[in-house]
């Protein structure tokens, strides 16, 4: 038998690698574009998500509404139904990350492919995860964002990898200046400045570790995440049982070297024929290009044939569903649903809290877009199901008045898309003054930095002359801030800029937010203040 590898499949494999690189590049490009680029409207930088059927189905079940943009997920489903899981093998940027690191770990001899059919049982894990996610959605617990590959990838990059890149860049720039290469330093600093990378997130380290962990799993098994964990892959697996793309081994040419099955990226078992798992194959063409005798090929066959599938035990399916049913209420054990949390300031346009939680997929797109870095991933502020959902932390950054980027990039409509004109009318909270710490009130010194920064016109922070009693018994009269709640939109810039650095003398809470009918303060404030009428000048 003449030993020769297939040039055709080697070419297809190369094409697949190029395609993966292109889509990963596209992912990075769109992510790096997710910030203020000079335009008020930045276009559909979140479009990747809309091709994800898992997000479409899970959020549709949880919120009982299908978000219109998810119509694109139909493309993915149709491709999978017709041709198989090409999307996993050729498109998914997280799949590419895992495959790249599997390749690296193989080359580093950290990962040694072994034929281990006993790990085949693990293939079922992802189906159970998918089932748990969907059952959770049925009970309005939207956990899909934790495990969905795109959410996971975007979140990891936005809150961890990109800030790491920015810090590394800053160290590099510092080094350039240290070496007296200041023009190179200037150029690098300007480059980083243009990309708006100067963001840090309160769980950035932790979220990076999760990503690192997912990457290191590839030491154990090639594409560990894709094989065993990915619920989106599982969903596509369910849809790929009847497709026309098949893998066959020509037994006349086969020398039974087992290379194809050994190097199969997703344990789809191309050899022997009857054990090939259609639902696991991602059509990476590794088997066909590695085969020393051109025995493996990918015929297109319309007729359904008997194929092996992952063993899903009925017992376990029932057990998983039951577990999810039991677990779902646990995620609701939080007073967050009972009473609005003061510090839970959601982005402008966010749906009412229950709807918001059903739709938010924790992808961090809004946080990446936020120009002030004020949007941060929640830890426990919004209850257990609200982990990694966006919360405005005014001490870190405020809601920029003429900006509606977060509303534009939300892939699921958890944050309703707003025009700038609509956005500036949205009230997300209210500002309060702590007179015990406020410089004019407590120390009798001039300040009113909050008033200076208040972005509304007329300003929601005005000043009055107040008397402060000083320790020596004298009285100082000073301009001190007061808040006009009719005008305050809760943007938080007052809290961000307050010179009382640790615990601010002016702070924002969620009360009065437009999206809630319960979290109200004054009944007169139900109607947003009309700004059309010309108010009289408060300073004359």
């Amino acid at each position: 038998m003449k030993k020769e590898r297939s040039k055709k499949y080697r070419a297809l494999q190369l094409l697949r690698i190029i395609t993966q690189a292109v889509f990963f590049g596209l992912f990075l490009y769109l992510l790096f574009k997710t910030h203020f680029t000079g335009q008020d409207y930045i276009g559909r930088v979140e479009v990747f998500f809309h091709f994800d059927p898992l997000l479409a189905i899970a959020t549709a079940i949880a919120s009982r509404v299908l978000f219109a943009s998810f119509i694109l997920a139909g493309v993915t489903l149709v491709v999978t139904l017709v041709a198989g899981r090409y999307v996993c093998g050729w498109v998914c940027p997280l799949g590419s990350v895992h495959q790249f690191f599997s390749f690296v770990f193989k080359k580093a001899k950290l990962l040694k492919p072994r034929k281990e059919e006993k790990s085949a049982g693990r293939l079922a894990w992802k189906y159970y995860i998918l089932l748990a996610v969907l059952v959770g959605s049925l009970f309005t617990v939207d956990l899909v964002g934790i495990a969905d590959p795109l959410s996971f990838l975007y979140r990891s990059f936005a809150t961890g990898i990109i800030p790491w890149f920015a810090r590394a860049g800053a160290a590099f720039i510092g080094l350039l200046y240290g070496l007296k290469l200041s023009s190179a330093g200037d150029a690098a600093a300007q480059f980083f400045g243009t990309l708006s990378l100067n963001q840090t997130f309160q769980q950035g380290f932790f979220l990076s570790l999760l990503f690192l962990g997912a990457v290191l799993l590839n030491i154990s098994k090639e594409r560990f995440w894709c094989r065993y964990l990915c619920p989106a892959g599982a969903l596509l697996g369910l849809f790929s049982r009847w497709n026309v793309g098949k893998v066959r081994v020509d037994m006349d040419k086969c020398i039974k070297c087992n290379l194809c099955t050994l190097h199969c990226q997703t344990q789809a078992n191309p050899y022997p024929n009857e054990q090939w798992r259609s639902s696991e194959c991602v059509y990476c063409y590794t088997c066909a290009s590695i085969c020393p005798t051109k025995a493996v090929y990918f015929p297109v066959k319309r007729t359904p044939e008997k194929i092996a599938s992952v063993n899903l035990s009925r017992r376990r399916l029932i057990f998983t569903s039951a577990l999810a049913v039991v677990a779902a209420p646990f995620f609701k054990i939080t007073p967050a649903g009972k009473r609005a949390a003061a510090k839970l300031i959601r982005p402008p346009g966010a749906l009412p809290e229950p709807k918001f939680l059903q739709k938010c997929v924790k992808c961090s797109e809004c946080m990446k877009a936020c120009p002030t870095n004020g949007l941060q991933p929640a830890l426990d502020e919004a209850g257990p199901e609200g982990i990694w959902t966006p919360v405005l932390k005014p001490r870190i950054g405020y809601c920029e008045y003429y900006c509606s980027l977060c509303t534009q990039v939300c892939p699921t409509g958890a944050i309703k898309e707003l025009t700038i004109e609509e956005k500036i009318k949205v009230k997300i909270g209210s500002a309060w003054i702590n007179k015990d710490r406020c410089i004019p009130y407590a120390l009798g010194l001039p300040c009113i930095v909050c008033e200076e920064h208040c972005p509304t016109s007329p300003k929601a922070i005005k000043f009055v002359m107040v008397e402060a009693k000083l320790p020596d018994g004298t009285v100082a009269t000073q301009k001190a801030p007061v808040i006009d709640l009719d005008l305050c939109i809760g943007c938080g810039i007052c809290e961000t800029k307050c010179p009382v650095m640790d615990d601010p003398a002016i702070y924002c809470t969620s009360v009065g937010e437009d999206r809630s009918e319960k979290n109200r303060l004054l009944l007169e404030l139900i109607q947003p203040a009309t700004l059309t009428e010309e108010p009289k000048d408060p300073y004359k």
Partner: protein
Amino acid sequence: MNRRDFMKDMALGGVLMRYGPSLLAQAKSSPDLAMVTGESPAAITKEALAALGGMKRFIAKGDKVVIKPNIGWDRTPELAATTNPEVIKTLVELSFEAGAKDVTVMDNTTNQAQRCYARSGIAEAAKAAGAKVPFVNEFRLKKMALKGEWLKEWEVFTDFVEADKLINVPIAKHHSLCRLTIGMKNWLGAIGGARNQLHQKLDEGMVDLAAFFKPQLTVLDAYRILTRNGPQGGRTSDVKLQKTVVASIDPVAADMVGAGFFEIRPEELAYLGIAQKRGLGQTNLEKLTVEKRTV
């Protein structure tokens, strides 16, 4: 040289000795401050500089020029929170015409720099004229001795210090604490650190900064002025169309003239008095040569 030529030269020399100095003095007595009103921000800026004796009076060939506008806020030019981009563009062009080697336009903004630079229109306008428009860069921040009466030292962006020539280009705006923010207050955008703490003695602080930076030229943009709800406004009804540009070698006088555009008595601006006392400039405009023109 024969005797006749010698006699001629002597005579000419004598005449020059007699009348030359006064002629030179007359040529030298360009105004200290020019105030030009007109429809086009670019045209009045050009005219104001021409009235002061041209940009060559301030900029020598090969100079590194830094122009400091107010780009502090994420606002469009109609809202009069940031310096008019056409004024900046014209100044960049004039600087290059006067022989500047490079011109940099920058400011330490209050809102996100990317937004302020873009939405104010200044980055685009200045770049079109060939200026560099970098963001401030933390690595260029250096603690420096200001030797002020209140501010002894502060973190300063060295770009402003290393410039050969510095042009301050503020816009005249309402400000609750110091009443009006014009030229001297503009220097808060050239420094870093905890700027929000300067409010505790803002008048003294900004005079210290103005004394430290000492611009060669102040060009006050009063094309649109912000009459209330400053320093960022938000509605066009807060804005008054003044259609004026003031160019001055005296930073205090520039602020003094700026105050005149508002319904405010200059005595209410404490920093003007402090600056006058410190010898930074003149609040009494009658002591200066002022030229007013209309385009």
